[in-house]
């Protein structure tokens, strides 16, 4: 009778008892941080398997299960999470995906890193390949979160944390990204250091395209902001006297040193071309296009390279535009007058040195002179009425001679030119305003 009762009792109560004990055991270790936790109950015996993150955690979990009400025996199948040595964590980015790999010390740190990656990077897929390991350096999570922030500044690349050493490689998303990352790395928690930083910045590109059909010069690409941008735009305006300057430049940090000192003369060289393109990529200057005549092509090929700062390279692909058809002297005079109506030949203040800003104009004058081979040309220098008349006379002569010399260097016979100085004796405007004086300071070409 009792045996039958016993059989029924065993039959009906075993599973509820096992369920209750499993629930109580799980509740007992709910707050202990463990990985791969598993509780299996047979009768009142619990087989408890888990990976603990410290010997203390393992011991605590075990005693918590042992103390759970109703538990008779605990089969200990717990072990410690493997230790990683060195402890390596990495975040790798290609354009649309961030892969977190290596070791993370605790499940909640792992979760936080994934969350931070998702939150900080917007519409980027985050792949979590991290495994849990012991042996993380102190303040690992702060360091990893900071590095994860930097991943956002990369287009592609990899950041690796090996124990307390940080290595970075890849390409910054934007100009200045490299510098921003270097600055951020200064805030790494104590004990961490940068072993290698191979982050590359995208090339710093400045382009200028001279389009003779639309009569425009289009500036595109990067330029340092503020004064440098304004200076370059102003220089372009002076050098391209008959073209409209379209400024599509974007202010960007990260320009190579001496950027303006290279770009302004390079724009001068471009202004001498009939059509052409100037591309400044990092420290390489590339100028291609058609010069107006042979001597100009040679000067442009040679000239810019010689004046570049150290570590800069100059590549010129200059061809010569086919010569325009010859014209008679009347047309020639008209062409000179048209050119000089658009712009005046400029000199250094008080001197007879030709301004670099006028090279484009001088080349066009030379080209025009080449089209009228029979014309004898008087190059007439004029000044305003300021200062001493004798000095003005001398200055106007010297300036006229400087222009004549330029034309001769361009390949024209010296005997076709007469340089004459008239001082301030032939004003074309009043000398009582600055504007009038500026008009009076001029070089005229007179075909004879």
């Amino acid at each position, binding site marked *: 009778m*009792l045996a039958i*009762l016993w059989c029924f009792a065993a039959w009906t109560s075993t599973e509820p008892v096992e369920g209750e004990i499993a629930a109580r055991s799980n509740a007992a270790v709910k707050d202990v941080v463990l990985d791969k936790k598993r509780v299996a109950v047979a*009768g*009142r015996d619990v087989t408890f398997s888990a990976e603990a993150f410290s010997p203390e955690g393992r011991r605590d979990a075990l005693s918590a299960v042992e103390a759970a*009400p109703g538990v008779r025996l605990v089969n200990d199948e717990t072990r410690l999470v493997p230790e990683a040595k060195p402890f390596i964590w990495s975040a790798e980015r290609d354009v649309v995906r961030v892969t977190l790999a290596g070791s993370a010390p605790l499940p909640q740190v792992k979760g936080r890193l994934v969350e931070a990656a998702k939150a900080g990077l917007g519409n980027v897929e985050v792949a979590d390949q991290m495994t849990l390991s012991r042996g993380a350096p102190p303040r690992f999570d702060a360091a990893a979160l900071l590095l994860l922030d930097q991943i956002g500044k990369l287009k592609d690349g990899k950041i690796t944390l090996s124990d307390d050493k940080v290595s970075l490689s890849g390409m910054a998303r934007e100009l200045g990204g490299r510098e921003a990352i270097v600055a951020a790395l200064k805030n790494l928690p104590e004990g961490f250091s940068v072993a290698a930083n191979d982050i590359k910045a995208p090339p710093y590109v400045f382009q200028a395209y001279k389009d003779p059909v639309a009569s425009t010069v289009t500036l595109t690409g990067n330029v340092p902001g503020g004064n440098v941008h304004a200076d370059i735009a102003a220089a372009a305006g002076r050098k391209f006297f008959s073209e409209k300057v379209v400024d599509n430049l974007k202010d960007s940090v990260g320009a190579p040193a001496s950027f303006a000192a290279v770009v302004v003369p390079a724009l001068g060289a471009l202004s001498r071309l009939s059509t052409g393109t100037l591309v400044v990529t990092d420290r390489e200057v590339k100028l291609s296009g058609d010069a107006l005549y042979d001597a100009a092509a040679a000067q442009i090929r040679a000239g810019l390279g010689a004046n570049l700062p150290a570590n800069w390279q100059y590549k010129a692909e200059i061809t010569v535009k086919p010569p325009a058809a010859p014209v008679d002297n009347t047309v020639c005079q008209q062409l000179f007058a048209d050119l000089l109506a658009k712009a005046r030949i400029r000199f250094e203040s008080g001197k007879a040195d030709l301004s670099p800003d006028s090279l484009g104009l001088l080349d066009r004058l030379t080209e025009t002179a080449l089209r009228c081979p029979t014309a004898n040309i008087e190059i007439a220098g004029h000044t305003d009425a300021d200062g001493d008349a004798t000095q003005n006379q001398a200055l106007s002569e010297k300036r006229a001679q400087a222009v004549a010399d330029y034309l001769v260097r361009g390949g024209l016979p010296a005997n076709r030119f007469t340089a004459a100085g008239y001082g301030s004796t032939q004003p074309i405007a009043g000398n009582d305003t600055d504007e009038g004086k500026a008009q009076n300071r001029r070089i005229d070409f007179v075909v004879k």
Partner: protein
Amino acid sequence: MIMVHVAQFFWGWLLASLLVGFAMGWISVVQRGEGVTGAPGRALWALVGALLALAIGRIIPGRFGYWLDLGLVMFGLYLVGCAIGAWLRARVVARSTPPA
């Protein structure tokens, strides 16, 4: 001992064994069966002792261990039921029997 924590699942069966024991004790006073005595009796007690030792030593694992515990508890309550039943019945019989 710790079985108390899970007794909610089988207290009905424990009560049943107590009642069976009580009934057995009750009838045993007037209708005595043939007792198991001598060597087989000792062997039986030895078996109970051995099972008790196994249970206390927690030697049998898993479900069988639980069933053993359960059986022993039920057996214990059965004996308690027997004792109470026999004692009560003995008092009833003693009172109702007129003195000779």
